[in-house]
């Protein structure tokens, strides 16, 4: 959220990503944000029929819910929500919502070509973050050959955590939630879930425990 940025200032990667229509089936994250603000009305078929846009919209809604909570909490303590933090999350949402690689779903019939997109799986990892109070998933990466059934995959996640929340406890809960959701929805062989807490945000977010 850096619309007031001076024109002479060099654009960041996050700014470029938000305005690059190649990222999300011809739409930018700014356009999707405006669409969300307008209550998804009037309906835009090019957005509504795009899985990548739908994943990005879900992630934006999640971010805005948290941002609202943060802004309310910070109103009495700090002047501004850190814009670089929000911009970083937006950058990750845009990148992670793309379809990416095709992850096979096994079936004994050779005529079956079944798969889930990598973008869908990254969306699941973000959704797992919702299950952990005081935590927001930033970047998510699937390391390994996801296109080969049975190949071991490591999930690497960067997360922001509420001030005062126990990092080891939250990381354990996130790891458990990611394992659970991926085992439920995919055939991936999860070798590990690496979680890096790279930021701390206001304690009130998502009702974090202290």
């Amino acid at each position, binding site marked *: 959220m850096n619309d007031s940025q001076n024109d002479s200032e060099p654009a960041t990667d996050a700014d470029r990503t938000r305005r690059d229509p190649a990222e999300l089936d011809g739409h930018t994250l700014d356009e999707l944000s405006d669409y969300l603000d307008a209550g998804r009305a009037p309906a835009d078929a090019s957005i509504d029929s795009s899985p990548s846009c739908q994943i990005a919209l879900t992630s934006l809604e999640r971010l805005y819910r948290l941002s609202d909570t943060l802004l309310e909490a910070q109103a009495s303590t700090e002047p501004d929500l850190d814009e670089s933090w929000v911009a970083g999350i937006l950058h990750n949402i845009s990148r992670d919502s793309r379809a990416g690689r095709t992850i096979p779903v096994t*079936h004994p019939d050779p005529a079956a070509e079944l798969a889930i997109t990598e973008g869908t799986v990254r969306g699941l990892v973000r*959704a797992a973050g919702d299950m952990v109070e005081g935590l927001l998933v930033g970047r998510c990466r699937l390391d390994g050959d996801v296109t080969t059934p049975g190949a071991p995959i490591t999930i690497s996640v960067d997360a922001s955590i509420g001030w005062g929340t126990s990092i080891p406890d939250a990381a354990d809960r996130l790891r458990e939630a990611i394992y659970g959701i991926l085992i439920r*929805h995919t055939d991936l062989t999860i070798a590990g879930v690496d979680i890096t807490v790279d930021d701390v945000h206001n304690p009130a977010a998502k009702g974090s425990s202290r």
Partner: protein
Amino acid sequence: MTTTTDLQQEILNVTTAIPGVATVYPAAPAAQTILENVVSVITQQPAPLPISITETDGGIAVALTIGAATNTPAADLCRLVYDTLVDHFRQNSQPVASIRILIANIE
């Protein structure tokens, strides 16, 4: 005689009736789909259906992209959609070369 459009509609009906299938997304890229929808409004012809069917020597090759409901395990749903379509084609003596099902969102 069954036309491709009839078959597409048939597959769409069978697929959307499966519990856990939330959406069937257009098989074509978004920009092309929008253009086709605009043309259909102008020409007052039905919009193209979101199912790709190709005739091959071994039977039809079907491709569809779906969104899964969050309360249904996606991989299991993918297999269920495949099995349901195979059963449907078998009952209708329709030879099938391949069925490609891609889950592009869990909503």
